[in-house]
Every structure is written in C-alpha cells, then in structure tokens.
C-alpha cells in the first residue's frame, strides 16, 4: 500500500541524508521524496511516498523517523483528506502537422507550454500522479524526448470532511 508521510525537519546539513539513510538501513522502499523550505525559517518540509506491505510497517517508519534528532514532526497523512501535487516537465517532439493536436491536449489538462524549440515543445504539468501518468500516456505517440518529474509533495487539507469513512478522492 502507498502511504504519504510528511516530515518537518531542522534545515541542517545532511538532514536529507539521515532520512534516506534510515530508509535504506531499515530496508524500506521510498517511491518518491521531495524537500523544500517550510513556512518557518530554518525548517524544511519533506514529503515521502512509500510502498509498504502493512500499516504496521508504515507505523514503524514514522516511529523510526521520529527518533531522528533533526526531525520535529512526522505524520502519516494517507488516511486524511490531502492535497498532493507533482510537477512534470515534458519535452515532446513536434512536427508542423502535429503541433495543433498537441495544443489541443494541453488545454483540458491545464498544462502550459514553457519553451518552444525548432522541433520540440516543453510542457509543464502539475497535478496528482494519476493525472500526470494519463497525460504522458496521451502525449507518448508524438515522441517524448525528455521527462523530468519532481515526485509528490503534499499536506493535509485545511478542512477535513466530517465523514472519513468513504473517502474516495484525492489519493496520490
């Protein structure tokens, strides 16, 4: 099962190394990890997506992460209502004949073109992983030259719906 774990950490040298080291030491598999500054100076926020066999292992991961001195807070937000996004940059081949077709794909996905070359375009797309996968699938036949993806970054929504029982939206 996929779990979304977010961490608030002290922004110190080597902190990301400590986190990734812990994952490899304990034989946990990270699917993606993103880091960036948080709203507080000298604290960073990390989002980890991990694929684990059971809730017990996910719990063990959060406990082990919590033991790190530079880790201030760890949350497994998988079962909450979350906003989760990743960014993808796609360089796709264009021919005069395909240009307008590609443009027509961009609009429904709310993607944007951020660079135009002689025979290629760079498309920027943000959204949940599924949306990005779907877009890449559509654009593939035109010839993808390069893809760069950030991995997921996420946090819990400001308001949690009252009924958490039948949550079937907003999964990564």
């Amino acid at each position, binding site marked *: 099962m996929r779990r979304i774990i977010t961490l608030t*950490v*002290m922004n110190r*040298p*080597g902190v990301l*190394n*400590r986190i990734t*080291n*812990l994952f490899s*030491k304990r034989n946990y598999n990270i699917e993606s990890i993103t880091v960036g500054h948080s709203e507080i100076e000298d604290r960073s926020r990390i989002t980890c997506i991990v694929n684990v066999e059971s809730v*017990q292992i996910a*719990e*063990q991961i959060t*406990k*082990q992460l*919590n*033991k*790190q*001195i*530079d*880790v*201030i807070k760890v949350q497994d937000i998988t079962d909450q209502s979350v906003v989760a996004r990743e960014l993808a940059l796609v360089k796709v081949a264009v021919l005069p004949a395909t240009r307008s077709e590609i443009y027509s794909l961009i609009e429904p996905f709310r993607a944007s073109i951020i660079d135009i070359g002689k025979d290629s375009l760079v498309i920027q797309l943000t959204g949940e992983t599924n949306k990005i996968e779907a877009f890449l699938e559509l654009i593939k036949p035109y010839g993808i030259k390069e893809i760069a993806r950030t991995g997921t970054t996420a946090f819990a929504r400001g308001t949690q719906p009252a009924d958490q029982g039948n949550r079937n939206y907003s999964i990564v």
Partner: protein
Amino acid sequence: MMEKAALAEKEVQSNSRISGAEMLINALKRQEVEVLFGYPGGAVLPIYDSLYHAGMKHVLSRHEQGAIHAAEGYARISGKPGVVIATSGPGATNLVTGITDAMMDSLPLVIFTGQVGTGVIGTDAFQEADIVGITTPVTKHNYQIRDTKDIPRIVKEAFYIASTGRPGPVLIDIPKDIAALGDVEVEPESISLPGYQPTTEPNYLQIRRLVEAVSSSKKPLILAGAGVLHAKASKQLLEFAEQQQIPVVNTLLGLGTFPPDHPLYIGMGGMHGIYAANMAMYECDLLINIGARFDDRLTGNLSRFAPYATVAHIDIDPAEIGKNVPTAIPVVGDAKQALLQLVKQNGKRSDSEPWRKQIHAWLEESPYHYEKEESKALKPQRVMELIYELSKGDAIVTTDVGQHQMWAAQYYPFKRPNAWVTSGGLGTMGFGLPAAIGAQMAEPDDLVISINGDGGVQMSIQELGVIAEHNLPIKIIILNNGSLGMVRQWQEIFYDSRYSQSVFASQPSFSKLAEAYGIKGIDARTEEEVKQAFTEEFPEHKPVLINVFVEPEENVYPMIAPGKGINEMVGVKKR
C-alpha cells in the same frame, strides 16, 4: 593602514579569545568528564596539545577499537557517558565497530573525531574519511563542527542526547583548523532541541490497562531487559514483581536486574537460556516486557514466541514497541517511572500460584547441566562455577563473545545490577578485554574479572599494554579450547563437523605474552590449578592473566536452533 587597525583590534580582543580545542576541554570539564579514552594523530593535535596541561585523565589505548570498547565498559558500569577521542581517517574508522556496538546495546558515548581542515574536506586529503556519513546509521546523532563558536553548544547537546531517553553514541567531528582557531567562548545556558523530546512519564491509561491485564491473567510473566538497568529500576522491578507475584525472566543484557536466588526468578531466556524461562515465555498468558527489544536471539521463531500471551511492552523508545512482536499494551516511558506507577496502582493480584508451581517444576526438571567426565579435560562450565565461588559472586564480569560468554551468562548468577559487561546486540569479538579496562576505571576498588576465549582475546590483546601501564588489577581469564568455539559448535551441529577455519593450528603462549607486557601469566589445566590460581591471585591488587585449558569439544547447551521456536530447545536434560 586598515590592516594595522584590524590587528590592533584583534589584540584587544585576544584576552577573551581561546582556541577551539580549549573550548572543547572547557566543555568537557563542564560535563564533569573524569576520564578520556583515546589515541592521538595529526588531525587532533590541537586537541591533544590542549589536553597536555588540562589535568584530565586520558587513557592511551593501543588501538582505537580498544579505546571505544573501554569507553563502553566505563559507560556500562558508571552509567555516565564514555568519552573517546580519535584522529581523522583510520583513527575514526577504527571506532566504527565500537560505535555500532554501543548503538545496539544502548550505551551512552560521546566520541570526538578529528577531521582534515575545512579547506580540504572533500578532496580525499591525507587521512580523510567521511566519518559523519559513515556513522550516520550507527549513531544516535552526529555532528561536524563548522564554526568554532558552536563547540560549547554542540558538546552540551551531545552529552544530553547520549545520556537521556534511550542512551546511545553521539559523534562530533572536528576539523583541524576549527580546533586550532580562536574565538570568544560563549557558554551555552540552555539547549534547544525541538526534535528531541523523550517521553519519560508513561501514559496513565496504558498503565491502568496493564494493571487490569495483570489482575485478569493466570500466567503473567515479566521479561526484564537492559532498559531496567539504564533506568536504575531494579528496586522497583523487585517491588512490582513481589507485589503482584509475577515470575521474572531476564534477557542476556538484563542479567543482574533481579536477585538470582529469589523465588520469583526463573533465569535467562533465549537461544541459550534456561528451559524453564523459555517454556514460561511460550506458555504465559501475559508477557510484560520491560526495557528489552525482542531480539531474535531471545525470541527464536517469532511465530512460536509467546503465542498465547497478551503482550505489554514498556520502553523509552517508542520505535521498539511493535517492531518485532505485536503489542497489545504499549507503554512509552522510563522503566522506573512506569514501575513506580504500577506499584502505586497496587492492582488486584492474579491467582498465579499454579503457574508459579509449574515454573518451579520446569526449573527442577531441567536446570543447566553438563557432563562431568573424569577422563576429559577441565570443563569450562566448572571454571565458571569456580569463578563464582572464589569471587563470592561480587565481581564485575566482562566477557568477549562466544561460548565462554554464554557459559558466563549461565553459570555466573549476577547478584547486583551494574556487574555484567558483555556485547549483546552486535556480538563483537575483541570487546571483553578493553571493556574490562573501562569497567575498572569506573570502579577502581571492585574486583573486575575479564572472561575471554582464546579467539576473541587475540582481537584486542594489545590492550594488555594499557592494563600494565595503569596497573589495573583486572583478572584476565582465557578459556582456551584452541578454537573459535561457537563457530566450531555450529559447524559440528549444522555443517556435519566440517571445521572450516575454526580450529587454530598454532597459538601463542598467552601466559608468556602476558609476561612480555609485564603482567603475571599463569597456565592452568586442572581444577586444582585453577582453584590455586584464583585463590592466590583474586585478592592481589594487580593484574594477572590465567590461561585455562579446557575441554575443546564442549558445547553450549541447551539451545534453540535457528528457525525453531522457544518451545523447541535441544540439549535439555530432563531429570
């Protein structure tokens, strides 16, 4: 002109400026460090220069691994952090085994390593190693100091982290120029570690749940580990066990937490534990783990570990709870605080009398035993019994790793906490001799007996030099069976007696080796010779090495084979 003005200003300030190394020494003094274990080298020369007139006791080991195991022995017996200094590169990497050992057995250490100057870090400079990277997985925390003025704060933080919560090793890497540079010293008043808030007070509701579980159980059992020692909670453990009449099993590292002659005491559990302890863990309906981490050498096959029990686990480290064994009643907190609360609750006692009778029947039926054959050489188990008898059971015992370690755990009942120093989690050969040095430094007046095998002792035998130099009255005993006994035993049982590289083709004369270091050396082959050596040498306040030749083919029993459950011990002799 500008330069001259800057120089003049520097001179004015110079009164309050001290070097990084001096700041470090001051910080150690503030922590009331009594003794340092270490080995100098290029990158720590500024630190050693400051030590020259500092008036602190420094023990010069003969190998960095000796220094760190000595610091572990010191930490284990004194309860205070052991302090180690080593140089960059090879000095630092020679510490890695000891750091890992301390991490596994939760021993507080503060380790200072030198580092090449900040200008050349990352260039593969002479004697450079990325020790912070290397030790990240095996330290509780580590630092590299980048600014001289951070030294006092980081040292204070390191001692705090090492000795609170679940204790562990903390490493501080100090580049040479940082130690040499001067700055104005600012003593840290308080430290702020927002990410480190160990829980010591247990949750009241969980304590209540545990009290209720005890009252409704028929077969309650306590498993007491080293966490009881770290929390200094032996007295509270005894009170709780007596109040509720719950029998007690120890882990290897928990030996000494409970009086061995007490009617509620069963003994050590696990791979080479006593039959009754393992059967009790198998049959109990409530297992209260206090400060043990359910190591696989204790549990055997997890599917057959405590299969009928509700498991309660008291631990200061929440990550240990549920790590290996599903836990119904988790109690995060200090063992002493938890036990105090449990005793105070004074819940309704369970009716455990038939259970205690059953345990006594197991104890009667299958005690530790060995065959006494007249024709064969001296039995190692007999040597352990003699050590116990002739030291009156009052000694601090350190061991190395292997068969002798298990025999010591089986045949030397520990009457008090803080008398047993052994490498449990990592199983580090070469640990015992230097650990005895640290233990003797912590308790100069106690009788310290270092029990070793002929294999392990050769991994750190150079530390005899330290024992001789400081005239430490350690009684070094070698159980010499001419082989790597535990390896040989496993090869006999699991590899069809194919003794691949486990029997020594040649051995030094250990007694002569001791003499070469200026330590009295004795060879003993018979019970009479051993008795004589012990009787004469134990009261002497000076070191001695007693090389005891024992039956080479003796094995450690009973035993749980790998993959088997705790209810499937072999080598159990039934009366």
